[in-house]
Structure formats: C-alpha cells, structure tokens
C-alpha cells in the first residue's frame, strides 16, 4: 500500500468510526485484534465494543465534540495524526459534573497500517489539559 493509501484508510476510519461512530464499518478499516495502546489507561482498548464504549462516554460528556485531523505524517506502514477536538462539557467527565465550558482535547496517535487495515494504535491524548480546562 502507498503512503497516500495508508493515510486515506486512517482518514476514513477517523470519519466513520471516531466522528460518525458508525461501528458497522469497524471491520472495513481495522484488522482482527486491533487495539489502541492508550498511555493514560492501564489496559489497551481492544476491539470494537471497547472503543464504542469509550466514544459513547466521550460524546456523552461532550455532545457537540468536533474531532478534527489537523496534521498528519506517514512513512512506511505508519501514519501519525495530530487531533484537535473542541467541545462543550455538558455532562460528567472524569468525575467533574457538566460545566457548560468549551474545551479542546488534543492528541497524537500513531497508527500501524497493514494491507489496508489498522492493526494497532498508540495514542497520547491530553487528559490533564482537558481536565484543567473544566476547572
């Protein structure tokens, strides 16, 4: 797969799964066993249901979350995405009741793409910065 094809798979995954949350398309973009190593969470997020729960929790707290790809770099079988996700904190998040505040969550994620499917992701999201914006 070319670098452009790998980037296209990542963009399609972000749009379908992370933004539109159409999990019927999860197998289209991810290989069996796909997991996300989320440094802030002790155990990796493994499979469709675990990611679905995470995204429901996030959009539950920030219903208008606008997850955007703001930069991207790819080499070989890896694609790195810089995300920014502004949203309004309307319901509890990390033990903090909804504040009505606008906050922006930022993150960097490295995806491993094999034969057109995502096999792994290593994610660093700024949870500390997000919580600070809610206080």
């Amino acid at each position: 797969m070319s670098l452009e094809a790998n980037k296209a798979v990542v963009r399609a995954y972000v749009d379908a799964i992370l933004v539109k949350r159409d999990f019927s398309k999860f197998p289209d973009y991810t290989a069996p066993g796909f997991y996300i190593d989320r440094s802030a969470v002790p155990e990796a997020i493994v499979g469709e249901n675990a990611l679905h729960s995470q995204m429901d929790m996030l959009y539950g707290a920030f219903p208008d979350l606008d997850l955007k790809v703001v930069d991207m770099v790819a080499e070989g079988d890896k694609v790195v995405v810089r995300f920014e996700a502004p949203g309004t904190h309307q319901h509890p998040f990390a033990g903090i009741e909804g504040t009505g505040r606008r906050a922006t969550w930022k993150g960097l994620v490295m995806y491993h793409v094999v034969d057109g499917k995502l096999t792994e992701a290593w994610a660093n999201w700024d949870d500390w910065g997000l919580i600070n914006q809610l206080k």
Partner: protein
Amino acid sequence: MDRIEENTEHIQRFFDEIWSAGNMETVDELCDPQFQFILAFAHLDGREAFKNLVRNNRRIFENLTYKTTPDDIVTTDLKGAAFWNMSTTKHSDTWRNVPASNNPVAIKGMTFFRFNEDGKFTEARVQNDVISMMKQINGIKMLYDS
C-alpha cells in the same frame, strides 16, 4: 543520506543528545533560532527558552532519559513524529508546583515535529501522559483540589 533518513537521525539525536545528555550545542545545530516547543501546558518561544526547559527538567529529574528507536519514528521532508519512553530515577525538586517526591518516574509520549527547508526543527508539539506523571510524583490530588 537522503532528507528522510537525515530527519529520522535528527529526531533520534533530539532525544539522545538534547534530552538524555543535555547537549546544548545539539540544540543550536538542529533547531531553528525561532524553534517553538509546544506542551500541553506551555508554549516556549525560541531556542533559548527551550534550552532553559531542558536544563531545568534535567536538574529536577535525575538521570532523565528519553528512549526512541527508528521503528518509533515517522518522517517526511518537512514533518516527523516519534513515540518515546521517558524515565528518571528521582524526582528531586518542585515540578509544576508539585514538591520533590524523590520517586522514580516512567511515562510514554509522542512528539510531532516540523522541519524547515534546511532540515532544522521549527516546531515540536508534545503530548505526554501528564496524569500518569502526576500519579507517580503524588501530584494528582492537586489537579482536583486546585
């Protein structure tokens, strides 16, 4: 060596020579004078501000070490990114208002770089696991109490 190989080598040196060894000459060699270092909680404007941060963190965190490998580095002509592991044997002075815990710390993080046409770093945006860091130095309570 082509530009991509050179950028990969420069990212490796950014962690090995600047962060792990404290070599300020490498900052001058690899970073543009207007280099921007952007953290979750700080935006450092210029090469000298970045040097001060490196010196300060290396004083606060004993044996500060950043590890990355070519497998963890992704580069093109003008952009790059790296996944890394940071460790220190002792948090020995106040950091982000958290007094010395004397604890060892290990966290993961990623940095997204931009290069200029001459191959110098112009920007580095860092995302690291600050919550894990705070847990390890007994600072997590401050986030909710402050």
